[in-house]
């Protein structure tokens, strides 16, 4: 397929790796921000191709993973109501709250529907005027324009039975929070290509300057990732820090201004709790007051639900790049995609789930046997 296949060329990938080998003189720790990038890295084994002194740690950019337990419990409380049709992206259905998940609720008779686009949930609201239709509006900045458009159209067209449960998260405050942490190891970032398609990358420039850290806005195909790594390492080796754009075929510095405009009309920035991490100030979007008639938290009075997460797993440390999935004793044993214990295993884009999907839990078993070299066990 055009713009995908070209960026998966094997021979070219190996050349990029050779170039990297020539360039690198000392160890560096890089973080890819997006879950989609993590998925590409683990799927294609990019981390195993890299020089051994370049370490990739996996970032917090999986919105399904970081949606807080209490927000999921709120979704469940709303979906249980007989007067409600609850619409969600498919990947939220199996994410466990404190007692159940949406798929189980559906099997017990709740009207839970999977939609591909927020616009589909609006159509359901139009077709079911006697029901209250609620859309679970999660995501990073990439998804915000779609969710904003659904709310805006409902507002403009007077669709009064339509509301959204908003749990939007923002990337820049998460990056700043990682860099501020005393346990931070990350020296350079592969920035979020699709978030920046919308937002541009101006807001990453002060972060790069303040923390003296290279940020390279990077795409999602294997060659994109390798070139992003190369550009980041080049900056580190030269002692530079700036924001660079590896992904100019879709990302412009100013982003998509029309989309930003509607997002700002519908949402405002507020504090947000992240699963596995806790509350980060000004790290999410909430609905503007003028659109409160479409705010599911207000309509269904679930804003009192306040859940503390059990400290059963190390996903918070994985999301901040301090630990790797196989550093956790539960990984692949007590904690699997079928029975996830925490944030990074609940969605396919979470670091733990990606490691599991591509057999890295088998590597863990090998590693635990004395005398088995980790690298040779995999390759």
């Amino acid at each position, binding site marked *: *397929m*055009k*713009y*995908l296949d*070209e*960026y998966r060329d094997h*021979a*070219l990938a190996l*050349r*990029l790796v*050779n*170039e990297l080998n020539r360039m690198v003189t000392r160890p560096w720790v890089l973080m890819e921000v*997006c*879950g*989609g990038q993590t998925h590409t890295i683990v799927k294609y084994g990019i981390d195993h191709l890299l020089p051994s002194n370049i370490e990739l740690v996996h970032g917090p*950019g*999986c*919105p*399904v993973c970081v949606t807080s337990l209490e927000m999921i419990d709120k979704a469940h409380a709303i979906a249980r109501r007989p007067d409600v049709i609850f619409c969600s*992206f498919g*990947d939220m259905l199996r994410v466990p709250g404190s007692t159940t998940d949406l798929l189980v609720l559906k099997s017990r008779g709740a009207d839970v529907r999977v939609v*591909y*686009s*927020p*616009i*589909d949930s609006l159509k359901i609201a139009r077709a079911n005027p006697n029901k209250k239709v609620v859309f679970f509006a*999660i*995501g*990073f900045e*990439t*998804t915000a*324009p*779609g969710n904003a*458009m659904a709310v805006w*159209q409902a507002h*403009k*067209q007077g669709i009064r039975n339509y509301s959204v449960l908003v749990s939007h998260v923002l990337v820049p405050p998460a990056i700043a929070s990682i860099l501020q942490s005393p346990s931070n190891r990350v020296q350079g970032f592969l920035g*979020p290509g*699709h*978030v920046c*398609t*919308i937002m541009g990358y101006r807001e990453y420039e002060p972060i790069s300057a303040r923390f003296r850290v290279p940020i390279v806005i990077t795409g*999602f195909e294997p*060659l994109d990732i390798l*070139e992003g790594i190369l550009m980041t390492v080049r900056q580190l080796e030269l002692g530079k820090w700036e924001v660079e754009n*590896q992904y*100019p*075929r*879709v990302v*412009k510095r100013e982003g*998509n201004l*029309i*989309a930003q405009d*509607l997002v700002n009309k519908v949402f405002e920035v507020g504090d947000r709790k992240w699963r596995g991490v806790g509350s980060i100030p000004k790290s999410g979007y909430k609905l503007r007051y003028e659109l409160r008639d479409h705010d599911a938290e207000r309509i269904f009075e679930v804003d009192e639900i306040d859940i503390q997460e059990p400290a059963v797993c190390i996903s918070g440390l994985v999301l901040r790049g301090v630990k790797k999935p196989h550093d956790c004793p539960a990984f692949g044993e007590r904690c699997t995609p079928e029975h996830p214990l925490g944030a990074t295993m609940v*969605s396919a*884009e979470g670091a733990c789930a990606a490691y599991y999907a591509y057999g890295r839990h088998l590597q863990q078993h090998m590693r635990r046997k004395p005398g088995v070299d980790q690298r040779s066990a995999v390759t």
Partner: protein
Amino acid sequence: MCLAIPGKLIEISQDAHGVRMGKANFGGIVKQVCLEYTPEAIAGEYVLVHVGFALGRVDEEEAARTYKLLEEMHQLSELEAPDA
């Protein structure tokens, strides 16, 4: 979740509420997309689509340039390491 896929725009229309919509072809699968955020996109161009919304156009010139740079690096390293 933030994954967006390039699709070729094959049709542009407006829905009953005046929203700019269209159809995009993703390697044989045709889906409806909202084009409100890409008013400049025309049929035949590639747009990057996420949850049914075109987030931006894929810049063919930039795509070609990035790929050419990668290929040049390829040739360069072949010159440097003929045995590799």
